């Protein structure tokens, strides 16, 4: 009697836990379905070639035009700029943490990195606007008040802790026996790092890069605040631009009625954003898996 009572509550708990686990899966599926339906509605009115290859994005102004390229180029400017900041500094930090720092230093620095990762992104945006842009202006006076460069720099700083931490994990996954082997052949620390540890950890570092790029693409607050709201097909980082995410913020904050074509642009842009980050995240995962197998 008692035993069956225990089994009954066990079963109940199992169902409860299953429901909790199901929430995130169901939500993801729901988001994908909504994105797909609204994007389909959008593409019924705007040909997919115009959407993907058009060079003018003016859904809020007459004459309306729905070419995504200015938003894509804006996003890419941020990604490239942020990568230039985050990738080299991130790898160098990881090399220091994993190869040079003493255990004590490491134990102090790792939490600092994590704190840096926890700063709200709006703070970074504000920082870009009020601190980074004025500095850029000192050197390049033609810089716009809102510009891609300062946003890209702070997005780079924003993803830096993640790059450093993931690269550090990748380097520390390289077995100590490889380092010992290299040292025993009369290598210096620098030679061990550059010729054994970094090549062996390369796929993990690469995966970190891909995840960082994925995050830079999805980053919203800093670029909305600092990069501007001008869909602008340009390669000049000193000009005001608009990213895909910033566009979504702009329209969401406005009073665009549901069901209109402008409203549907939100979902179309979000779908593109989702697809890009999805592909990048899958790529990063498969790269990581491969590098985990190497040493097993």
């Amino acid at each position, binding site marked *: 009697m008692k035993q069956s009572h225990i089994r009954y509550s066990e079963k109940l708990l199992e169902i409860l836990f299953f429901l909790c686990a199901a929430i995130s899966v169901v939500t993801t599926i729901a988001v994908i379905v909504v994105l797909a339906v609204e994007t389909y509605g959008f593409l019924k009115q705007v040909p997919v070639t115009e959407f993907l290859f058009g060079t003018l994005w003016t859904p809020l102004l007459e004459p309306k035009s729905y070419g995504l390229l200015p938003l894509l180029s804006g996003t890419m400017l941020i990604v490239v700029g942020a990568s230039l900041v985050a990738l080299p500094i991130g790898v160098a930090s990881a090399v220091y943490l994993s190869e040079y720092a*003493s*255990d004590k230093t490491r134990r102090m620095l790792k939490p600092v990195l994590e704190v840096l990762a926890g700063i709200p992104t709006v703070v970074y945006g504000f920082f870009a606007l009020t601190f980074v842009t004025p500095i850029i202006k000192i050197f390049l006076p033609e810089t716009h008040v809102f510009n891609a460069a300062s946003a890209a720099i702070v997005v780079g700083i924003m993803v830096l802790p993640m790059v450093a931490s993931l690269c550090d994990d990748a380097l520390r996954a390289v*077995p100590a*026996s*490889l*380092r*010992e*082997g*290299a*040292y*025993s*052949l*009369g*290598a*210096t620390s620098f*030679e061990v790092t550059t*010729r*054994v540890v970094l*090549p*062996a950890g390369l796929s993990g570092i690469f995966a970190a890069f891909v995840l960082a790029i994925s995050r830079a693409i999805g980053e919203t607050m800093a670029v909305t605040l600092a990069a501007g709201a001008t869909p602008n097909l340009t390669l000049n980082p000193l000009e005001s631009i608009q990213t895909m995410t910033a566009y979504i913020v702009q329209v969401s904050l406005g009073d665009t009625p549901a069901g209109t074509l402008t409203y549907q642009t939100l979902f179309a842009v979000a779908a593109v954003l989702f697809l890009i980050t999805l592909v990048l995240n899958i790529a990063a995962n498969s790269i990581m898996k491969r590098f985990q197998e*190497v040493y097993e």
Partner: protein
Amino acid sequence: MQDDKTGVILDIDDVCISYSGELAVRNVSLPIYEKKITAIIGPSGCGKSTLLRSLNRMNDFIPGCELTGTVTFGDVNLVNADPVDLRRRIGMVFQRPNPFPKSIHRNVAWGPTINGFSGDMDERVEKALQQAALWDEVKDRLQDSALNLSGGQQQRLCIARALAMEPEIILMDEPCSALDPVSTARIEDLLFELKENYTIVIVTHNMQQAARVSEYTAFLENGVLVEYGDTEDVFTNPRNQRTEDYVTGRFG
């Protein structure tokens, strides 16, 4: 042991090694003779690997590890020598094969490359692989990944990698402990050929192996050198009761 230092390439004198204050090796004095094989035996945790790794300063990487005493190598005390230079002259083979995840050729060429070797690299690689008795098995696939080799082949590759530096001394830390008996036998055969040109110090807890391959044997227990002498004497006519108990398998 004796005052006669002829033929001694490494003179370990009153060496103590501690980890964060805890003594692992206590006042060990021991000569290592040139172009001979010296075996260091003893139960697990007796400090034999610690002692071996101090000879090419590999303990430098262990925080809190300290060494007192002197180890004379030629005319330098290697305790104060530049570890990078030192390791070019004293090579090491580890307990588990640790080839780099690179091609066979690049593994062997790695040491000479970083040390600025400017001669014929292919020749150097072939010579090292031949000395390590691996050449015939890999000569047609030098560009294959070293990780595709069997464990025994990987260990011989690691020996070739150390030999390519043309060191004076090779330290071996239980080089056969991860290998099957056939691979072990091949490596032991190899040791006989290598001692023509190299001084070898081998740590092993396989007493038969020590008896088979070495000329001199040192028996360590709890960090203390219990006995050192000709291998034959240590195994057949030990002076110390503890040694006799250990080599006859009564403990350890």
